[in-house]
């Protein structure tokens, strides 16, 4: 390997290298005798500044720095699904087997297994014209994912040879493409630099919701496939549980879970759970559609910065196969802090709270890699980004939250007071929003019910009224309000207890299909409308509360499983009947 220079200065994860020649910006280099991986982030004369992805303890001035002559890249191919990687795509399971419980430095392990053989089935034949991103063949990667072997984006020409169906290592050649007398070999795996988005044919409009089975999300603040959501919240408000729930229950084909600077035990929780949990739609373990990237808070900070790029590049690879991918980023604030730390070490000019001036442009570039796409092979694939934000002190005006808001169209604000009252998910109905409702209402019309949008706005209107009324209640108590207004409060309370709260740990309640959500919504609004007539006749709200059907509503989220939806569909009718009986 070529020596590119010598270490000149070491300050934490940033290493200054002298005497460099022939090194490009964002090239990957290997630093010191232990070959620690780093990336060139600044060039100045014969000096290069390298951010090192591993602990730099014991690195000395004069140590050699080696050039790899390539940017920081990930390996793409079958075997990604179900694997847990660190921020620079080193397989942690393999490291554990080799090194034991602690992560040593200078570990060199290939991201994909070299031993495993994959059963390859060609889809094109020799003589076909092929261009970048088109499907050459298929590999059944897991029982859920049919891995499409793509022609690398930069390759085009005529296929002069394609491997026969059979078992292949990922290092084996599976095709040869010739263009203008030059031939290129295509392997079962390819590499892609993480900082560059993979190409697509075109972006397409957003139309379909990403169903999460979480009622407050799907019904009130839906996210679309190809959209971006920010989930900000102070500590203890349930960001991570929300992320886990979506990773478990969303109807994405592939989930990339990036644990960026968060707790080690949380990753363990996810890993153990996902190995056991069965996807309700496919009856297969969730592990068979999930890729994990774990760069926990105590792992090197520079690798934390790289981890979300590694994650999104893997997501793009599966999108290019025509899959709908959800990328969970927990948490982007830790990523931004890594950026800040590195920026400080590079002695750059700080802006608000010490963050560098390029924070917003980096955020924008990241979120733009989401979207609904027409892939190079003409299929539809999408990436949805669900990014949690951890604002210091729960203050949403801080730089990361406020900049993120500019680039996402959906915002699930987690509320400390709700979390304190153990109202989970603690998503606030007053400060959250979704701009995707108009994009996806067509889907609800076609697949669930035409009333959906109208009912949704009705609920939102009730909550607006409640917001105003609760100001009054705080001052004088609820008893002085007219019955009609007390009914608004009562309905909202019912709505919070019976609909918005959703237990992640209850076998039935943890997931609600769109149909179930709609029926529950309809039941409560039916109650509101019928009760409105009754209170005008002078019937008190306390009388309504003791009705058996009221209790049924309170417990409907636990009681009606997805197999009992026909029974639930009769509940609005029963509510109407039993309230009508009262009026006589």
């Amino acid at each position: 390997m070529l020596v590119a220079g010598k270490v000149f200065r070491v300050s934490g994860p940033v290493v200054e290298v002298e005497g460099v020649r022939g090194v490009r910006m964002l090239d990957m280099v290997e630093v010191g005798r232990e070959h620690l991986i780093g990336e060139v982030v600044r060039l100045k004369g014969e000096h290069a500044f390298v951010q090192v992805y591993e602990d730099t303890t014991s690195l000395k001035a004069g140590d050699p720095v080696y050039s790899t002559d390539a940017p920081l890249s990930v390996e793409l191919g079958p075997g990604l699904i179900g694997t847990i990687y660190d921020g620079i795509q080193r397989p942690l399971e393999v490291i554990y087997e080799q090194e034991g419980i602690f992560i040593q430095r200078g570990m060199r392990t290939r991201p994909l297994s070299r031993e495993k053989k994959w059963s390859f089935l060609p889809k094109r034949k020799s003589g076909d014209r092929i261009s970048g991103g088109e499907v050459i063949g298929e590999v059944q990667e897991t029982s859920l994912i049919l891995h499409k072997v793509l022609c690398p984006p930069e390759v085009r020409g005529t296929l002069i040879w394609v491997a026969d169906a059979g078992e292949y290592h990922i290092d084996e050649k599976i095709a040869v493409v010739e263009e203008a007398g030059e031939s290129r070999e295509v392997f079962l795996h390819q590499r892609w630099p993480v900082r560059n988005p993979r190409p697509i044919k075109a972006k397409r409009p957003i139309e379909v919701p990403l169903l999460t089975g979480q009622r407050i999300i799907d019904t009130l603040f839906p996210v679309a496939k190809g959209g971006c959501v920010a989930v900000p919240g102070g500590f203890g408000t349930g960001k991570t549980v929300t992320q886990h729930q979506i990773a478990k229950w969303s109807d994405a084909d592939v989930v990339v879970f990036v644990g960026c600077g968060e707790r080690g035990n949380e990753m363990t929780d996810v890993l153990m759970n996902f190995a056991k949990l069965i996807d309700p739609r496919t009856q297969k373990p969730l592990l068979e559609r999930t890729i994990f990237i774990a760069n926990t808070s105590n792992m090197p900070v520079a690798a934390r910065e790289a981890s979300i790029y590694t994650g999104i590049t893997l997501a793009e690879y599966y999108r290019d196969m025509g899959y709908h991918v959800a990328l969970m980023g927990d948490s982007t604030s830790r990523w931004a802090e890594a950026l800040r730390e590195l920026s400080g070490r590079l002695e750059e000019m700080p802006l608000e709270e010490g963050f560098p001036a390029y924070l917003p442009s980096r955020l924008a570039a990241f979120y733009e890699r989401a979207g609904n796409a027409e892939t190079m092979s003409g299929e539809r694939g999408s990436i949805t980004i669900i990014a949690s934000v951890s604002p210091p002190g729960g203050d949403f005006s801080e730089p990361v939250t406020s900049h993120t808001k500019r680039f996402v169209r959906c915002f699930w604000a987690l509320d400390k007071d709700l979390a304190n009252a153990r109202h989970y998910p603690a998503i606030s109905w007053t400060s959250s929003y979704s701009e995707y409702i108009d994009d996806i209402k067509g889907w609800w019309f076609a697949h669930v019910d035409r009333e959906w949008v109208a009912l949704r706005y009705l609920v939102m209107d009730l909550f607006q009224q409640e917001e105003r009324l609760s100001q009054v209640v705080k001052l004088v108590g609820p008893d002085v309000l007219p019955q009609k207004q007390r009914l608004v409060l009562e309905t909202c309370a019912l709505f919070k207890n019976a609909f918005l709260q959703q237990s992640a740990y209850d076998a039935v309640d943890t997931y609600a299909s769109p149909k179930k959500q709609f029926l529950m919504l309809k039941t409560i609004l039916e109650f509101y409308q019928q009760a409105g007539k009754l209170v005008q006749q002078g019937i008190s709200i306390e009388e309504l509360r003791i009705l058996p059907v009221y209790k049924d509503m309170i417990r409907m989220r636990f009681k009606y499983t997805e197999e009992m939806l026909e029974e639930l569909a009769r509940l609005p009718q029963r509510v109407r009947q039993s309230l009508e009986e009262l009026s006589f």
Partner: protein
Amino acid sequence: MSDYRLREYTGFEEIVGPIFLIRNIHNVGYNELVEITDEKGRTRIGITLEVGKEFAVVEALGGTSGFSLRNCRVKFKERPLSIGVSEDMLGRVFDGLGNPLDGMPKPVYEHAMNVNGLPINPTARDYPKNIIETGISAIDVMNTLVRGQKLPVFSGSGLPHDLLATQIARQAKVADERFCVIFAAMGVKYDTAQFFMRSFRESGVLERVAMFLSLADSPSIERLLTPRLALTCAEFLAFEKDLHVLVIMTDMANYCEALRELSTIRGEIPARKGYPGYLYSELAGLYERAGMVRGKRGSITQLPIVTMPNDDITHPIPDLTGYITEGQIVLERELNNRGIYPPIAGLPSLSRLMKDNIGSGMTRSDHPSLASQLFACYAHVKDIRALASIIGEEELSPLDRRYLRFGDEFERRFLSQDPAQRRDLEEGLTLGWDVLSLLPPDELVRVKEEEIKMHYKKRT
């Protein structure tokens, strides 16, 4: 040893606070151990903070007082700072740099370990399981502590966090396993350290406690090392000797202050309130050393104590701590002023790992719903109290008045207990139902109907 290779240098270029710059040196590694001998022949240790071509910036862990630019001799040890570890460290008292304080010789070490530790591979972790019964209902019932968890105590000056910590250390019960406590004091007063030592001695647990004391009069820079020594020792005992280790660290605020001091001297760009941008990573490097790992029987449970400056939970220290730890126990001044001990605030306290470790087969089947119901009702009490302070208690509805009674009983009977009292979990759960039964059963929507039938106490 390769001591013959060690070169000695004389003379610094600059000394600022606890750090100094030395030039014309070679072959010095980043973050490595340095030994400095001053004119009088006293030796102190330091760590390289930055190394470059022919220079190094060193922080002297014992401070730089008495150093001069010309007469100090410096040895670069060419290895990171390490500590000798052995099971004999239990029952001993050390200073903040690991030297014995109890007048006895250094324990015979089994081997030396790098104090910086290495990150635990997330796939090697085992999810924390099995609760640690502390005998304090507010913790056992409402915020259960789990082996391998890191659960800080957020407190304020004048609140009884030390008393609580000793009560936990004394009463903590780990079923059928070996258990020990490591206590790291950073910048606390001598009285506080004495208080801990005395209460460990009186309760007869001293022989299973190792103490690392960096007191308020020690150089502040020493505090950066103390928790690392304690945690390295804990890793040895947990992962090599199969012990269940409880690490109590007090006070994390002093650790962060020392970090800020050092960062400011180095002229780094501050993030919030003058704290360096890497405070989060720095704290995570300590807190994440808690846990359990696959194939090892021992565990490290952390109980860091954080006094919140000005009782402000949004201050960077408690804030960043809360983002890393798995919940928090918050002490409340108002409860304390009303004479309620332990003054554990009902709502902001939380144990994240509780959910997977309580319920049937682990504690008692009704435990999760009972805890959730108590939280919900107590949250409602707070709303009603706010309302009552405006319109007066007389104007409240009868139901709301029952809630107020519930709130009082909850605080007086359930939360309160004597610092010497060990109330086991079963007793705590029964008491929880006792106070919950002050409310009509219709209000209890978070518990199952069977549980109401079984545990609800009808009153006449």
